[in-house]
């Protein structure tokens, strides 16, 4: 059997392809990791204070919690832990924007991602016209043992927060708050989100 002998040009092309792939691998290994380079711009904010994001103004107005909550338009939820109810206002300065990304980081650094409508831990925030305020809600289940000191991150992109402005709110939850929430015997009513000026 006679093996095909590659021509010089074919060998050269092959060598260039391997060299380019190797160079790409070296670059990937030495450039900053995508986690670091693409991390969101975090803007810290306390309850009752307003933070300015790329897409609008955000203010956390209230934090409450219970083992069971009764959303205005959904079925009652009961948690093996605690459900934290965070109310916040969002006033967009960019058309067609809202707050759709959220994650709770507890005192042990564990993270719970919030989804959009329909999930047990979810954000409900209408998309108002520019300059009009939405009164929004975030519901998130949490482990009561590590809830005191938790922080909530909120941002405009549900799919991917990288490279964007997000708010990081210290929820100012104490161990005493958590004990009170766990001992609540009736479900906490949660009003549906609204847009200012609309019923």
């Amino acid at each position, binding site marked *: 059997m006679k093996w095909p002998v590659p021509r010089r040009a074919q060998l050269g092309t092959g060598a260039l392809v391997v060299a380019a792939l190797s160079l790409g691998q070296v670059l990937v290994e030495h450039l900053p990791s995508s986690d670091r380079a693409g991390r969101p711009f975090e803007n810290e904010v306390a309850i009752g204070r307003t933070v300015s994001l790329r897409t609008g103004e955000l203010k956390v107005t209230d934090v409450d919690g219970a083992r069971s909550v009764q959303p205005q338009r959904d079925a009652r939820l009961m948690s093996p832990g605690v459900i934290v109810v965070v109310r916040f206002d969002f006033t967009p300065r960019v058309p067609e924007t809202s707050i759709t990304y959220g994650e709770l980081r507890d005192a042990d650094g564990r993270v*719970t*991602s919030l989804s959009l409508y329909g999930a047990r831990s979810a954000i409900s925030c209408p998309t108002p016209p520019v300059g009009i305020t939405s009164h929004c809600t975030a519901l998130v289940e949490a482990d009561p043992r590590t809830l005191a000191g938790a922080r909530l991150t909120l941002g405009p992109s549900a799919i991917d927060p990288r490279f964007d402005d997000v708010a990081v709110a210290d929820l100012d939850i104490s161990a005493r708050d958590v004990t009170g929430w766990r001992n609540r015997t009736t479900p906490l009513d949660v009003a549906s989100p609204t847009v200012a000026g609309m019923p």
Partner: protein
Amino acid sequence: MAGAVVLLVSGLFGGLREAPAEAAVPLAVGKPHEAAPFTITIERARWTSDLGEIAKTDRGRYLIVIAKVRTDADRSVDLSTLQEALALRGTPGIYAAMRDEKIVPSEKATPSVYVLADGSRMSQLVPGLTYELVYIWEQRETEPVPAVLKVATRSHTWRQSSLDDQMNWFDETIDAVGTVPLSKAKP
């Protein structure tokens, strides 16, 4: 020869990933089993054609496994990983999902998952909390009601996606198999 070249060249870019091997251990009712990222305790199995407000079927029955599930991972775990964590094996006539028309091998069917305490659809599993979950498969009417369900757990590996660099749970692998007696649910 071609295989050797592939191996040689792939070595320059980190090599080929080893395929996960399936090595199942016995799965016992009532005994916690670690199937990353979960600890799963199978409690009981029931069948019914009426799930109340969740669903009713006139084309067969629902096969239900109730299990306590917990994660101690650093991040909440999404529903698809939770669905993959439990499978039926060797059960004939299982629909691909509730209300789906297609019959598939039972281990390929996607169960619906609900929270027993409030009947809500399960979504993400929160670190540190133990949920009592209801896994539901639908079986066609022409099959006899099984006396037992053969149930398998799958473990996952936390790694970076080769498509978008995001970290997630991948590579589900059956790691335990056991049987659970099946009885009719009381109305």
